[in-house]
């Protein structure tokens, strides 16, 4: 999944370059603002819908999409638009928390490893390699179990599995900054490694950190959907997007296509939007592409 997203990101980047006239920075910024408002709207409104989204209406079961129910209704007459909305809001919250924690872990480990160097660096690098070599989903499942399931389990497991690639990027960045003349000089002047880390290196890392955070977001959402899909963490009546998709699988053979297709599309659009957002921010912050 990592590879796929990054590959598609590069693709989008290329498309972005080809259409640089259309997507200039101002338009990108405008796009970002609209997007952020949209997300906030989904998050705030969706969490308020959670109770209503579970309301059954046994007289309106299995209805195809209509004006009254744009996403149709399920086998208990629950409105699928409300459920999808509520599910996305849950996914966004989980995704945001998990991505935030994960990138903080990445930042701290990357910074510590590169600043202290030596045995500490070797130790953390080894950990990064270990985490990168383990299959993502397996570690997620194990961690979700160990941390006791529930919403916390999902957040913790996603947070604890997504930091290594960011940590590695940050570590490399720190090494680069560390060899700069002014940092060498600062060290010669007797500043401690932690002082140098805070005053010289950290300010250089913010762009990396921000981009890393945003790009982690779609991963976190997809993985949240993934582990709720296989039934770990949340109760099956809670409207998480993975649970909605898993339940709809049972009804695919009956021809109720709207149960899977529409929530699936909504998830796809949301993830893709965040992916584009991350790429755009990266392009804006990268001095080599900022002027394009």
């Amino acid at each position, binding site marked *: 999944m990592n590879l796929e997203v990054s590959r598609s990101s590069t693709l989008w980047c290329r498309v972005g370059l080809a259409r640089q006239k259309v997507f200039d920075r101002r338009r990108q910024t405008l796009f970002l603002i609209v997007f952020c408002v949209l997300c906030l709207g989904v998050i705030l409104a969706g969490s308020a819908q959670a109770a209503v989204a*579970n*309301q*059954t209406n*046994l*007289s309106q*079961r299995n209805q195809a999409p209509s004006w009254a129910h744009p996403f149709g209704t399920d*086998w*208990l*007459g629950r409105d699928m638009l409300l459920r999808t909305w509520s599910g996305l809001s849950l996914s966004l919250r989980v995704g945001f928390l998990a991505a935030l924690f994960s990138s903080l872990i990445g930042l701290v480990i990357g910074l510590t490893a590169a600043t202290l160097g030596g045995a500490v660096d070797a130790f953390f690098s080894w950990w990064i390699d270990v985490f990168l070599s383990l299959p993502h*989903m397996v570690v997620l499942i194990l961690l979700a179990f160990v941390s006791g399931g529930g919403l916390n389990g999902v957040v913790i497991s996603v947070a604890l599995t997504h930091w290594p690639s960011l940590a590695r990027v940050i570590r490399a960045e720190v090494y680069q900054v560390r060899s700069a003349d002014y940092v060498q000089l600062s060290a010669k002047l007797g500043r401690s490694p932690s002082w140098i880390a805070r005053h010289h290196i950290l300010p250089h890392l913010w762009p990396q950190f921000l981009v890393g955070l945003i790009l982690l977001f779609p991963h976190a959402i997809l993985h949240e959907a*993934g582990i709720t*899909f*296989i*039934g770990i963490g949340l*109760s*099956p*009546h809670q409207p998480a997007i993975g649970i909605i998709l898993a*339940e709809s*699988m*049972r*009804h*695919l*053979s*009956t021809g109720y296509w709207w149960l899977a297709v529409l929530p699936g599309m909504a998830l796809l659009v949301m993830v893709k939007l965040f992916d584009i957002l991350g790429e755009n921010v990266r392009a804006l912050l990268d001095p080599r592409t900022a002027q394009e």
Partner: protein
Amino acid sequence: MRKSPLKALVVLPIILFSLSACQSPSPSAPPPAETHAPSQTPSPTAQMPSAGYPQETPSRTLTLAIGGESSEGYDPTLGWGRYGSPLFQSTLLRRNADLKIVNDLAINYTVSEDRLVWTVDIRSDVKFSDGRPLTARDVAFTYNQAAKSAGLTDLSMLDQAIAVDEDTVELRLKQPTSTFVNRLITLGIVPEHAYGEGYGRNPIGSGPYQLVQWDEGQQLIVEPNPHYYGEKPQFDRVVFLFTSEDAGFAAAKAGQVHVVSVPQALGKQTLEGMRVLPVPSIDNRGIMFPFVPDMGEKTEKGYPIGNNVTADLAIRRAINYAIDRQALVEGVLEGFGAPAYGPADYVPWWEPESAIRDNDPRTAQRILREGGWQDTDGDGVLEKGDLEARFTLVYPASDSTRQSLALAVADMVRPIGIQIELRGASWDEIETLMHSNAVLFGWGSHDQTEMYNLYHSSMRGKGWYNTGFYANEQVDNYLDLAMGAPTEEEALVYWRAAQWDKKGVGFTTKGDAAWAWLVNLQHVYFVSDCLDVGKQQIQPHGHGWPITFNITEWRWICQ
């Protein structure tokens, strides 16, 4: 992980195809001349041969996707077939399609005057599938073994089983038990000479079929037991597929299986070449309420006991009245079921007067008002002193029907001011929660012992039975009288009284309302138009393969 259901759909036809490919001219199939000519039919799988062409020896393979895999194996002494029809083994007695008790291995049985000794004469012409004869020693061994292993087949009342001679066995009880006849109906006889560790994986018995191959989690293949003493089954091979509900349905849609069991929600679908067969059952679903308040007590395993809200009679009774059971049947079960008011509706030991007029929020509200519940803070949830009318209902997360029932019930009682929070959990978790939270359970047996176990105070906290710690001396008394009655018939009046004695005592709604029973399911199957599965009995709770109880009578009716 997302790909797995798809993968199952892709792999399934391949397995089926390779299976049917292996079977075509089967050397074990008897030549057509040997069988009774009129019912001689071509293979269900060999659909190609048309009239006028010489047909190859038919291989009559039946493919069933009816679930029921027993992951712990097929050992009756550990609980296999505890709801009847063990397939590989045969039982002393059995119930026919009308639930009447008829002889199987037994020729007759007598019960001593003190009702402590059951003497059973068995047939002397019976052989196990390995060719060795079945004797009274095997019967005695089976009963003693089952009592010793204390599995899911409850034989705690058995003192000892003794083979008196080659074909007579004495079953001696510790106390008179009117329901003991049900053990004779459900316990399959295992051979003493071939019993040991691993028997469950490789069962040898005297039933109509013997096990050929079992690929755990995938399929189980059986072939007729050549030594079976009863009517010879018409099918040379039966394949049980263990698929998820949707994969089974998809396989049926593709014409790959002859019988498939589906969740009730799919019962309104149509499948080409198949007919829907709803079979009534006493498989029921209901909400168990913790009966005692939370006094900080714990079970031996350390699980908390009691719930202050559900310990209130008004709450339990009001919920019973507020629920619209018919709407649950129509809405959740697609009409494949019936409202349930007790643990054993529509069977001879049911007390019909225990039923109430439900979907009656007014009565529910009156009961709550009289019980001292009021909405003092206007938040829509009632209070009584410091207590809020709010509790958690736990359901097994893997069961979509129970989840739907739980959601619908929570919505039905919200308007009367009771807030039910839902929690989906695994069975392991439920075990820790079931004494202090309401749980959506399912039961249903042809054996009245189940009612005793669910409501007798001696069963408080024992296994999965009386998990709510229900206790009522008078109900205990009725249950004891029923258990100690000389015969099943004489026990009926006491079983009924325990439900509702019309004088103010009973565990159903009019009495203690210990549970809120919701629905009796119909088991829904799609059966090939070419297959006649005979008359089905009212099925018990769905472990095992209840539809196969008469598998020897199944007929292929297409030419």
